[in-house]
């Protein structure tokens, strides 16, 4: 029982990080119908910005953890958003009206470019960070197994839930959210009725990047080791999560992320670790066989 609880905690923590990245994929797909394969690299860049910010703060002598965390969070969100905005402006906007394949290849190109850019700038070696927040609660001792819930895992959960609430409010209650929903329904019609499409798309990239930046910071705090290649694996998993939850659906992305994290943890717990990715992808295939639009995706209605 304690063991199951521990594995659920492991899985949910991992799943929240996947979910935050997955929202970026799903939002961009919802509006312009392209898969932004460079999104995983934004997550990686965010992790690098976070580690650099921590080092700078360390040099500046700001050691009080809550303040340091807030500063790092703000700096990372800001700078990663700039990357996200620039990515759209430089690589995707000029190709807005070209065939979808061109945009897709550009996205893959940008992904390779950003990876190599960080590798050249920061070196290929891993970058470690000593634990910033350590310690946690121990509870549920059933004889031999003690469940550990670290402060960091609580922080990740609180931050993720808070971000989701703010984000849902933005989508449903603000002018920006209204334009986003309009663009999602029909890009051309939205522009005809006065929605500033370019601005909406730019802001979508900015929001996606800032969510990925929170994921990057959490990843750095949780595992303490990053390298220029982390964006690839995390990107693939998050993209899978977005498809599983139904690409285009924002709650679906979070649900998909949590599911992938839980499947990986629980499969590792009760079956062989070697096949955990096989398990995750098999479930994806099964879901797509029975629900081609994913768990929460809306089926495309043919307009006649």
């Amino acid at each position, binding site marked *: 029982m304690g063991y199951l609880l521990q594995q659920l905690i*492991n899985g949910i923590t991992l799943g929240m990080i996947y979910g935050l990245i997955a929202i970026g994929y799903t939002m961009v797909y919802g509006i312009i119908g392209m898969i932004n394969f460079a999104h995983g690299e934004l997550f990686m860049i965010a992790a690098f910005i976070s580690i650099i910010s921590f080092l700078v703060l360390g040099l500046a002598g700001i050691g009080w953890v809550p303040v340091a965390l807030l500063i790092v969070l703000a700096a990372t969100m800001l700078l990663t958003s700039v990357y996200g905005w620039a990515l759209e402006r430089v690589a995707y906007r000029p190709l807005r009206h070209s065939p979808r394949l061109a945009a897709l290849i550009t996205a893959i190109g940008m992904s390779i470019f950003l990876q190599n850019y960080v590798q050249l700038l920061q070196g*290929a070696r891993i970058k470690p960070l*000593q*634990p910033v927040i350590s310690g946690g609660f121990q509870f549920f001792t059933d004889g031999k197994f003690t469940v550990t819930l670290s402060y960091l895992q609580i922080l990740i959960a609180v931050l993720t839930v808070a971000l989701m609430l703010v984000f849902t409010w933005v989508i449903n209650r603000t002018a920006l959210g209204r334009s986003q929903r309009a663009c999602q329904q029909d890009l051309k019609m939205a522009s005809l009725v006065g929605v500033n499409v370019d601005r909406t798309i730019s802001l979508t990239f900015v929001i996606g990047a800032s969510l990925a930046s929170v994921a990057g910071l959490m990843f750095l705090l949780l*595992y*303490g080791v990053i*390298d220029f290649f982390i964006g690839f*694996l995390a990107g693939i998993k998050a993209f899978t999560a977005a498809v599983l939850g139904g690409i285009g659906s924002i709650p679906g992305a979070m649900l998909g992320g949590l599911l992938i994290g839980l499947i990986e943890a629980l499969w590792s*717990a009760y079956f062989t670790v*070697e096949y955990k990715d096989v398990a995750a992808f098999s479930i994806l295939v099964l879901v797509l066989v029975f629900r081609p639009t994913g768990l929460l995706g809306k089926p495309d209605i043919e307009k006649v």
Partner: protein
Amino acid sequence: MKRLFAVCLTAAAAMLGTSTVSAEILISTAGPMTGQYASFGEQMKRGAEMAVRDINAKGGVLGQKLELTIGDDACDPKQAVAVANKFVSQGVQFVAGHFCSGSSIPASKVYSEENVLQISPASTNPKLTDEGDANVFRVCGRDDQQGIVAGEFLATKYGSKKIAILHDKTAYGKGLADETKKALNGAGISEAMYEAYTAGEKDYSALVSKMKQAGVDVFYLGGYHTEAGLMIRQAREQSYNVQLVSGDALVTDEFWKITGNSGAGTLMTFSPDPRKNPNAAPVVKKFRDTGYEPEGYTLYTYGAIQAWAQAAERAGTTNTQRVIRALRAGQFDTVLGKIGFDNKGDVTAPGYVWYEWKGGTYDYVSN
């Protein structure tokens, strides 16, 4: 267009021409210069550069200067073959490489077809020399030796405890884990868990919880330092005091950078530390003067190049077949001590000893 093509061809031919006609002997080292094992690539690069500089300062080999070229295989078997082909086309005479067994083995096929000599400073999988041709040598130990040392140690020291064996599915990691398992089972003890994980991931918390649930007291890891470090760090975060025992792929200070103090007490096998070898003292000092600590495989790469240079001097030529005969026949004074090679190409030096990580560095286990 046609004329442009012709010009390109001529230019290419001219470039090829200069590299083969030049009076220098081209040698190379190859390893993971990028990627997550890049710290080992750096060890090899530093060792090779220093060796070439020192040999050239003494007049080179057979009166010719050495020129070093460096290949990056990123520990990827496919890239290793590409690097090997590139070396062959450049006219490289001798390769001190590669690092990962999974790279050395496929690359060795290319070298043997093209008659290039290979001495690996670091690849420990038995298959490299068992299945390799006459042109393959190594100055490090073998995983069947290392596995026996590890398995017997686990059996005597932790025989009454629960032991897990993990590997990362690579030629090196799985090979080492299986040899250790064989030796452990041979001593009449069976492991409580045998699992494979995927290298390159960062989250091993599920695997750590699984070991904790199974009550594993000590786990043996066939794999590299990044994953070993992450596992031990994540175990400590779950307040799980498991003992890590592993092999020679932990000999880099990056391991400690990942674990911090939670890495203290980690045990590993590695060949006797050449830095403590009196013959190596001047070289070690030279490295330290440049601000670099010659840890891990740095001196092994240095020693591999020394052995080749001395064999070539004795053979009186850099002809691969004659150098091979000289390598088999003689003893060589290197920073690794006096070494020779057996018929398979394995080094006849002492095997493996135990090290413990403590305070950011590793040293012999004090008994």
